[in-house]
């Protein structure tokens, strides 16, 4: 019978943690460079966070005459206007900078519709006033921070504080790296980007917890093994799982890159990138950090958390008997 292909050999012995000096450099690069990029090129802030008006139109002729549209709109006195092709040659995205008041924001859209008339089909309009955009920035930042704190508390409760710190540090790494991607690719940064970041946080953490779980198990099992060796062993044992899971999630997500439509494209790019960065940081950030933070073995031998483990095992056995 077909047993499935073993994509990853069962007994890999790769020295992940021993290579940590290299990894520190890469991780530092992935954390610091995005911040520099955001400061220099900046993020392509969408209207969610900047306020403004966005109009997506489909022209009757293909390809769209961008210059003609620009000509019609630039004379309206609406300040900065961006006009670009969006997804297909006959689809155009018009972005108008935030207007001083909410009323002017409303009239800006009416003016554009008057100027373009019936030559185009209006597929989408979005107007975000200055009140909402500042609220969305505050809300988005708060959400990321609250998610991190919630996660830290859970990991601390289920493992030890060292694991919680390592998890959050590597999540910060994932988040900055992802923001860096937004800066490099100049993807629009908006509310769905925050959703993408939170999802990456959730997914990446999931991966870290799986490895932590194995580290915890091995700490109980190999009481005398040097920590470096133990960490490498844990990662290697989970390597097959990690690769298979990340490949399947990527496979599931990838079609959205190619035919998910423009609306979801940025989200899909960020997710795919986040899956890879998260996989990297589980192995090269979260695990080696245990060395720096100095995981206490005693914490897992006689302490309540081990008792809890036993209790769970006991419960599982009871269920098995049932």
């Amino acid at each position: 019978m077909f047993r499935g292909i073993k994509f990853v050999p069962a007994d890999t012995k790769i020295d992940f943690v021993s290579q940590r000096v290299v990894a520190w450099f890469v991780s530092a690069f992935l954390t610091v460079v995005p911040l520099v990029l955001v400061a220099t090129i900046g993020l392509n802030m969408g209207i969610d966070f900047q306020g403004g008006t966005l109009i997506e139109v489909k022209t009757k002729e293909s390809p769209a005459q961008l210059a003609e549209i620009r000509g019609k709109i630039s004379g309206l006195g609406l300040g900065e206007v961006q006009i670009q092709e969006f997804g297909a040659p006959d689809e155009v995205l018009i972005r108008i900078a935030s207007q001083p008041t909410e009323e002017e924001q409303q009239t800006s859209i009416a003016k554009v519709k008057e100027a373009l008339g019936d030559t185009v089909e209006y597929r989408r309009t979005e107007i975000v006033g200055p009140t909402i955009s500042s609220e969305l920035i505050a809300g988005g930042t708060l959400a990321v921070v609250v998610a991190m704190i919630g996660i830290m508390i859970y990991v601390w409760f289920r493992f030890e504080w060292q694991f919680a710190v390592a998890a959050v540090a590597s999540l910060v790494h994932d988040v900055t790296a992802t923001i860096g991607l937004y800066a490099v690719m100049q993807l629009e940064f908006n509310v769905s980007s925050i959703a993408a970041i939170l999802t990456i946080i959730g997914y990446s953490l999931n991966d870290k917890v799986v490895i932590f779980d194995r580290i915890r198990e091995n700490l109980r099992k190999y009481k005398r093994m040097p920590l470096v060796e133990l960490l490498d062993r844990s990662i290697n044992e989970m390597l097959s799982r990690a690769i298979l899971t990340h490949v399947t999630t990527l496979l599931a997500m990838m079609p959205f890159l190619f035919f998910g439509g423009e609306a979801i494209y940025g989200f899909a790019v960020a997710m795919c990138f986040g899956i890879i960065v998260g996989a990297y940081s589980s192995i090269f950030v979260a695990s080696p950090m245990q060395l720096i933070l100095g995981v206490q073995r005693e914490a897992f031998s006689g302490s309540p958390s081990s008792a809890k483990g036993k209790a769970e095992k006991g419960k599982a056995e009871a269920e098995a008997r049932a």
Partner: protein
Amino acid sequence: MLHFQRWKVILVGIIVLLGFVFAAPNLFPSSALQGLPSWFPHKQVNLGLDLQGGAHLLYRMDEKELVDDWLGTIRGDVRESLRSNRIGYIDLNKNTASRAVSVRIRKPEDVERAFTELKKIAVPVGADVFGGFSGNDIDVTRSGDKITLTATEVGLNERISSAIQASIETIRRRVDAFGTTEPSIQREGRDRILVQVPGVSDVQRLKGLIGETGKLEFKLVDPSANAAEVAISKKVPPGTELLYSEDEPPIPYVLKDRVLVSGENLVDSQPGFDGRTGEPVVNFRFDAAGAKRFGRATQDNVGLPFAIVLDNKVISAPVIREPILGGSGQISGNFTVQEANDLSVLLRSGALPAKLSVIEERTVGASLGADSIDSGQKAAIAGMLLVIGFMFAAYGLFGVFANIALLVNVALIFAVLSLMGATLTLPGIAGIVLVIGIAVDANVLINERIREEMRSGKSPIAAVDSGYSRALITIIDSNVTTLIAVLVLFWLGSGPIRGFAVTLTIGVLASMFTAVTVTRMLVAGWLRWKRPKELPL
């Protein structure tokens, strides 16, 4: 862990079956559903505004206007109270910035009496279920001969709440007249109203209808003033005001301040056509009090023009040919049929208590929505097929078990979404795909664990048994952390993002059920049936 009690197997079977049954309606177009027998579930997943097209409009109430109106009322109350008690006063002022009305009492001996009387204007508000109340709507204070009435925070909140409630009712009547299906109108935060109307195409008209205050007034035109001159000199005679029509160019009118009858006295308004000219008009009817007042006013002013004013704009200014005593009338103003129709809706629905302005607007055309469904569907199906193929390649038969669980998982997500009446958005579709990844992860964890246990020399049954029980702890830990992030997303997000969080939450919970229970039963059943010497894993 491989022996299941019969009732457990039956229960899981029923859940899975129900999942498929309740997910099934989503496979049919809604037109085909009508033809199916009534016992068949008909509930489909609601499509979000981004998928079916529609308008999302967030309004904010003009708090300043509301406060101003209220202070005006308080000032009127103060005046009336002092007059009826024959107390002399000076400097009756309202100050919107400090939310207060102040007055000075002429005679020192009257101050105490005035203070007692004015305190009666304040009423307790915010009574809660326990019978206590949080305070008065107005604070009355005194210093020397000056009495100040300040609007309190509770009072203001109460005002805003009731104004928002009234606005919601008004907006509902207006949107209903638009004839769209299932609009949602709800309060957001302190002073906001979110209006979501699916499937609407003419958003401009919708906004016009919702945002108009709709304050209707009948006033007399001042026959002694020359409107054109007043418009140039801006010297408006006392007791009158200068208003314009909506014509191009606007025509100025000098109107007397006194309101003959207002929209509050209107009981009905309907679009119609003028009997003689055939042009579109709005027919209206007053209540008894309004009819009486209007009758008397027209009787006294035959031959003079009066103006019909909507939101401080003159719609028309006809000359009164004869007294209008029946309490019904007609507004004509060069309307198109649609304008007459919208105006009648506006008048019928009543005025908004304060001005509303749009602070966020998102509209999606029906064609873009259809395109999004199409591309979302394509991508999701492609993603799922790739995952199913890969799982089979990686685990063979055990991959098939995982894939069956995956299908059950997707069916459960759709079943729960349909039953909850939740909304599927484009990010929600991406969420389902992500759940596929997460659900598969649980099975990957289990299968890898079983392989490990096999390598340590365990028998097939023992390997499967400890594979499941050991992986379970990891699965729970990892899914709980995902749920934490997702719950934050739900709390933060609105619209499409919230849809994403909902699908992800349902999906993660369903995946724990399918990956752990469904596959375990499948594997256990297979083990008992085949009794293999070794696992094909």
